[in-house]
């Protein structure tokens, strides 16, 4: 389905057109849900977070100033909602032990991953993202998948530029470490 600009749906929603808001949800539901899932790590909770965030969006749509992109505003709401949910459930972050980065080994490992089928690789990537700390997987998802700039991620997370860059760096490092672990495990399971 081909969607129109966000502003068109926003203006119509503000005029009382619920169908327009439905289309706005449909346009962003996947990315909104994915971001929530990367933070809360649970599909049911992620769906609740995304739904609550869309409800908040609806109720505060009048206050959206249009200075930033709608997606940045939406992701900020989802990010805060998901963090709130995490605090409520008091679930500890998934801790990943520090894995020393070996560039030499990494090249072979990355080549090995490249040779995998798309579906297998995607599964491994999702598993690796799930094993990261919520802040790291959120920043990686926002930067790589949702194509938000560092400046926009700063606005969403309220972290400083250097903190966002550190999280991206650490997130990459941890993800590669996690990918190595997971792919080794998969290999052991196959043997």
């Amino acid at each position, binding site marked *: 389905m081909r969607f129109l600009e966000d502003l068109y749906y926003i203006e119509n929603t503000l005029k009382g057109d619920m169908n327009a808001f439905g289309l706005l949800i449909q346009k962003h539901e996947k990315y909104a849900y994915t971001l929530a899932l990367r933070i809360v790590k649970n599909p049911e909770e992620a769906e609740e977070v995304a739904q609550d965030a869309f409800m908040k969006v609806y109720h505060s749509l009048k206050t959206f100033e249009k200075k930033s992109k709608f997606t940045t505003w939406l992701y900020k709401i989802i990010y805060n909602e998901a963090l709130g949910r995490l605090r409520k459930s008091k679930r500890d972050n998934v801790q990943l032990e520090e894995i020393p980065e070996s560039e030499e080994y990494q090249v072979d490992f*990355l080549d090995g*991953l490249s040779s995998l089928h798309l579906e297998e690789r995607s599964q491994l990537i999702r598993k690796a993202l799930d094993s990261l700390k919520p802040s790291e997987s959120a920043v990686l998802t926002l930067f790589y998948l949702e194509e938000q700039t*560092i400046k926009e991620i700063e606005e969403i997370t309220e972290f400083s530029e250097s903190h966002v860059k550190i999280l991206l760096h650490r997130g990459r490092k941890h993800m590669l470490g996690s990918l190595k672990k997971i792919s080794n495990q998969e290999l052991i399971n196959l043997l």
Partner: protein
Amino acid sequence: MRNFELDEKDPLKVWIRESGAESPSSGFQMNILNKLSTQTSSKPYEPVISSFGLKIIGGLLAAFFISVLLFVPASESSLSFWNQLPEFTLPWVNLSLPALFIPKIELGLVFNISVLIFSLMAFCVAILATRKWRYQ
């Protein structure tokens, strides 16, 4: 630290993008719209006792306390405010009314107070029931 902005061929970036976004359940959009429609159709919260009712209750309480302060004598020997008021007599009006006999029921103080409390409670219940019925 690497330059994240320029690294377009970064394999991690490519793989995260190709793994794509995950889909919520099929009823995701409808759930939100249903929740919103039930929220908009429900009436906004209203307190059980209105501000006018609260004012009346406050006024009655204030009147009660003021009257207690006025009528309580300062000491055991002094007179109460009521007794200090100048005496006056109303002119007697002689009316010839038919002689009616109202049976005099002498009930105890406890009984009278409980009847009064029950009637007040019944009054409150009647008001609440009326309000509830009006909102249904």
